[in-house]
Each structure stands twice: as structure tokens, then as C-alpha cells.
């Protein structure tokens, strides 16, 4: 058996077909798509074909797709681009408190530009209640952004309900679908959204390519000014190999979704059941039902998540603490704080994200290795078995 790579929320392997599709565009097919001579216009046609494939994955039109360098750039373009383009209508934006940093920090950036931002609380499962959204909307609210699914706790949000609230009030609605696209059905009309972010790296395409869907005729202030690329909405010579990889990956993701979803769901349930049966003092995080099919997240009491990640990696098992940004800054995850997880318990956060290249043997292997590693780490933990005095538990922020 090969290594059990269960960190697909961080990166997915580039599929063989995707790499093969990309290779000519690193060498023979090198022309600039903006060139007017034939070898340039041929590349422009290829870029537009990929735009149609990415659009098809989410039920959009090709002209509603802007290619970006990443999901983070797509999120920045959505929040700042709408904020700047519509500020005469109002300067208030609402984002959920469990958004990716590229949303949270874009909203904070707008605050520096004299906007106001509301960070909408979530319930203990990370679920955004539409009624709660109604209460924080103001006459000057121009944008609401709630992610389709959370990468740390797997919860899938009620996007169409939230978007309906906004539509009724003429407020623009954005969703970050980086964690959900390719894992569950994503359709911009069913979700009723005005903007939606995607990342190639989550779909089996290479890193360095993403896209923003924007509903036709929506005004958006570009963040990168320059040439005519992306119809003047995002300047810079196109990353043609990345775009070709993204198009191929989107095509494959759409074709395979109906088979992949039940397959990874079965593996996820095998993992969740095994962990909860074999290990005591574990908190399962995120929504029990409304969650991504390949997502299992836990907090192990009296354990440092990073120690657990390292020890699992020594055994060829790759997982994550949840938030790479928070982890590297030695901060506890704001997502876990937002769902009310105690600060000491949040330290033991571990996330497994399963894809269709994983097998039941991988899960059996994790279930064989994880319990003794948890037991070993707890045996050297200064807080294992000790009751934390009341009032000192804290909630991570």
C-alpha cells in the first residue's frame, strides 16, 4: 500500500490526464493569447474552451468566468472588487466568522478603507443561520459572503437560503466554493449566488490557478490593472498551462462526481466510526450530517495537533491540523473558536480529507496507527487526565 495521503483540502495530486493536457502549453504551444496572429489566436481559443469547461462544472456561462492565480485571489477580487464598485450604495459587508483568511482579511482590509464589516457568528456545528443573517443586514449592506463548505470542519452551509435573503434585499451574495467544488454538486443557479470562487489545486489541477464566477453584468472593480486579459477585469498574461490543467480537471471532476461522492462518503464514515469507537475523549467537529462527503475532523483531548500530525506522517499518514495559517502562527484556529471549542481542546485539532484515490486499506491503516499514537502522546501530556479548573478552559480566539 502506498502512503495514506488524507490531506486533500490542502492539495490534490495533479491527475495524469491533466498533466498530459498541459504539457504542450509549456513548450510548442507557447504563444501569447493576446497576439493577433494565428498561433496567438489559437491559444486564445484554447483558453476560452477551458473557460467553458470550468463554467460547465458550476452551471455558469463561459463569459462569467475570470481566471485568477488562486482561490485566495478570487476571494479578494470578490470582496474588494464588489466593495469598491458598489460603495456608493453603501459601505457595509457581512462575512461569516469561519471564512478562509482570504475572505476575513479582505473584509478587514475594507475596514481600513472606511467600510464596516460584520463577522457573522455560527452555531456549534459551524452552521450559518439565515435568520441570524437577517438580523445583521443594514440598509447600507452591499455584500454578504458565506463559504459553501468549510475546509476545517467540513460543514456545508445553506447557501441558497442565505442567498435568497440577500436577493430579496438587493444585496450581492458571494460564496467560496474552493472546498466544495468537485466534492459535492455546485450549481450557481441552484445556489442563487452572484459570485463564486474556485481553486484548481482542490480539483486535481496544479497550484497557481483559480477562478471567480461573477453573474453577467455584475460590476466588479479589477484589482490588477493593465491589459485586456479577462476582458479588462484581471490584467496579466494568462497562465495558459494552468488554465488548460484547470479546464481538464473541471471536466473530469464533473464526470466523476456521481461516483466519487458515495465512494468517499463510505470511507469517511468508516474513519469517523473507527475513531469514535476506538479512541476516548474525542470531539467530532462540524455538522454531523450537512458536511462534505470526504471530510472527517476531530479534536483529541490533551494532545497537540502538530505532534499528532508529525507522528502520523512518520508512519506515512498525511493529515492536517485544519488551518495552516493559524498553525504556523502558533495560534489556535478561529474556526474552532467560532464554534465554541475550548482553547485546550482546539490544540488537538486534526483533519482528514479523503479523495477518490484513497482506499479502504488506507482507512484501516489509519485506524491501526492512530489509537496507539494518541495513547503515546497522552502518556507524555501534562494535562491528560487532569480536570481543567472551571473558568480556565477558555475559548480560542
Amino acid at each position, binding site marked *: 500500500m502506498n502512503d495514506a495521503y488524507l490531506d486533500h483540502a490542502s492539495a490534490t495530486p495533479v491527475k495524469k490526464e491533466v498533466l498530459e493536457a498541459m504539457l504542450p502549453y509549456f513548450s510548442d504551444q507557447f504563444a501569447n493569447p493576446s497576439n493577433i496572429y494565428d498561433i496567438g489566436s489559437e491559444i486564445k481559443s484554447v483558453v476560452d474552451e477551458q473557460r467553458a469547461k470550468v463554467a460547465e462544472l458550476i452551471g455558469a456561462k463561459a463569459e462569467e468566468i475570470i481566471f485568477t492565480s488562486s482561490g485566495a485571489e478570487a476571494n479578494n477580487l470578490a470582496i474588494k472588487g464588489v466593495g469598491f*464598485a458598489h460603495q*456608493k450604495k453603501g459601505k457595509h459587508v457581512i462575512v461569516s466568522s469561519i471564512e478562509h483568511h482570504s475572505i476575513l482579511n479582505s473584509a478587514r482590509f475594507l475596514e481600513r478603507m472606511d467600510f464596516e464589516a460584520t463577522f457573522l457568528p455560527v452555531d456549534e456545528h459551524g452552521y450559518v443561520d439565515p435568520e441570524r443573517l437577517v438580523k445583521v443586514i443594514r440598509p447600507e449592506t452591499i455584500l454578504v459572503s458565506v463559504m459553501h463548505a468549510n475546509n476545517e470542519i467540513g460543514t456545508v452551509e445553506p447557501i441558497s437560503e442565505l442567498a435568497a435573503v440577500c436577493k430579496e434585499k438587493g444585496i450581492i451574495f458571494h460564496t467560496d466554493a474552493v472546498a466544495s467544488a468537485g466534492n459535492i454538486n455546485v450549481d450557481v443557479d441552484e445556489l442563487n449566488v452572484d459570485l463564486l470562487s474556485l481553486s484548481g489545486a482542490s480539483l486535481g489541477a496544479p497550484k497557481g490557478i483559480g477562478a471567480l464566477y461573477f453573474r453577467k453584468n455584475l460590476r466588479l*472593480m479589477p484589482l490588477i*490593472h493593465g491589459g485586456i486579459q479577462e*476582458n479588462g*477585469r484581471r490584467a496579466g498574461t494568462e497562465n495558459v498551462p494552468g488554465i488548460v490543467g484547470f479546464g481538464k480537471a473541471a471536466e473530469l471532476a464533473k464526470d466523476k462526481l456521481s461516483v466519487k461522492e458515495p465512494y468517499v462518503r463510505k470511507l469517511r464514515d468508516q474513519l469517523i466510526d473507527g475513531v469514535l469507537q476506538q479512541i476516548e475523549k474525542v470531539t467530532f467537529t462540524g455538522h454531523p450530517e450537512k458536511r462534505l462527503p470526504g471530510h472527517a475532523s476531530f479534536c483529541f483531548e490533551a494532545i497537540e495537533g502538530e505532534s499528532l500530525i508529525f507522528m502520523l506522517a512518520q508512519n506515512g499518514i498525511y493529515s492536517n491540523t485544519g488551518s495552516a495559517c493559524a498553525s504556523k502562527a502558533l495560534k489556535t484556529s478561529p474556526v474552532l473558536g467560532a464554534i465554541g471549542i475550548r482553547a485546550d481542546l482546539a490544540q488537538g485539532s486534526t483533519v482528514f480529507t479523503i479523495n477518490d484515490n484513497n482506499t479502504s486499506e488506507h482507512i484501516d491503516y489509519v485506524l491501526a496507527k492512530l489509537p496507539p499514537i494518541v495513547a503515546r502522546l497522552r502518556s507524555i501530556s501534562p494535562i491528560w487526565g487532569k480536570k481543567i479548573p472551571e473558568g480556565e478552559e477558555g475559548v480560542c480566539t
Partner: protein
Amino acid sequence: MKFVQEQGADEVLDLVCRMCPMHLLEPGDKLKCMQKGQVLEVLTDYDGALEDIPEWCKKCGHEFIGLEEDDEYYKFYIKKKK
């Protein structure tokens, strides 16, 4: 500069927030899909359009009908002539 008021249009092209040369490229593409004699309304907040659009109409053989100013943007009216 010719100013107009309440000028009707057959098609509207919203280029607000976009810059040079989109204020010339997009009307060119849009007019290709329109009938001779039809009027295109172009919305833009790009100041360079004040000089560019009338000049571009002359070069391309379309009629620049005039301009209307709004609080947020300009409305340019172009009649397709060929």
C-alpha cells in the same frame, strides 16, 4: 462635445470600473452584433472615453450621437452606420 438627454438605445453596454482600451474594444464587438441604424448606450466611468469614443466613432464610421452625464458615470450614445 455633444450632450443629449433622454436618448433611447437598443442595447446597453456597462463598462463601469473597466479601463482603457475596454471602452473601445467592447463597443466594437457589441456593434458587430447589432443592426445598422440601431443605437448603443455605453456606460463608463473612464474619463479618457470623453476624447476617445467620439474619435473612435469617426474612425470606424459610426455616428456619435452624444453624451449624458450621470452622478457615477457617463452614457455615450453611438448609432451603427455600417
